[in-house]
């Protein structure tokens, strides 16, 4: 189970709301060190183009980020993005994640993250060993702490 500092949850909602402005999807990543994998420590907000119904991460940002991760011994554990309405995983979400490892998590926040800062209405899914995504209970994967 990942330990998620409340400040990261607050930062996540603040970023999703500010970037998406209630009109566009937004995406970010939760990182941890490879030396303490379960302790999430940082939110990364990628450069991206976005609309009400989708987004694309900038190629140059991925390159820069990939180099930084290895230099800082950090890894991406979770992707988080918003939907305009209900939270679910679309075929595009399934097909084009940043990370392809079994165990990688994808959290979808409904209503452009305009609701309260919580996992209410959110959808969490995980890459299985065969590469397929499968919904998993949020409370089984994250422990929020101060």
């Amino acid at each position: 189970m990942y330990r998620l500092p409340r400040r990261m949850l607050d930062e996540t909602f603040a970023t999703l709301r500010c970037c998406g402005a209630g009109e566009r999807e937004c995406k970010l990543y939760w990182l941890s060190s490879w030396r303490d994998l379960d302790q999430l420590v940082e939110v990364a907000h990628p450069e991206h183009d976005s609309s009400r119904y989708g987004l694309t991460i900038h190629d140059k940002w991925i390159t820069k980020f990939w180099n930084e991760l290895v230099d800082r011994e950090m890894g991406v554990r979770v992707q988080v993005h918003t939907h305009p309405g209900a939270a679910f995983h679309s075929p595009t979400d399934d097909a084009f994640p940043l990370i392809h490892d079994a165990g990688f998590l994808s959290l979808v926040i409904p209503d452009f993250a305009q609701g309260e800062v919580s996992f209410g209405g959110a959808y969490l899914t995980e890459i299985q060993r065969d590469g397929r995504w499968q919904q998993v209970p949020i409370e089984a994967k994250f422990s929020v702490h101060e």
Partner: protein
Amino acid sequence: MADRQQEFGDDSDERGRSDDEHGGGRDKPFEIEVVYNGIAKPLEVTKDEVIGSVLQKALAAFGNLPQPHTLALYDSDGNELKNEQQTVHEAKIKKGDRLLLRPSTVKAG
């Protein structure tokens, strides 16, 4: 000369000697690193090896990731090594170089 040898790995052609004269020459492996999600792994390649082969070895080094068709190799400046028939030499990959194993496209919808 020593710098050039270092730059291109052990390359007997660069020094005007045949491959046989230099105990394997062009086919002598040299090490690069491949990175994926913050982990760097060493990979031995040869100058005549094609990029497709390097990609397969990189995928294997990271445990045969699911959906491998979505991943590609890039140089550390972000140029995708698109031509899988191109050799390591043609792609200007040198000893100690870092390659990025990463998805070509990242989207949500």
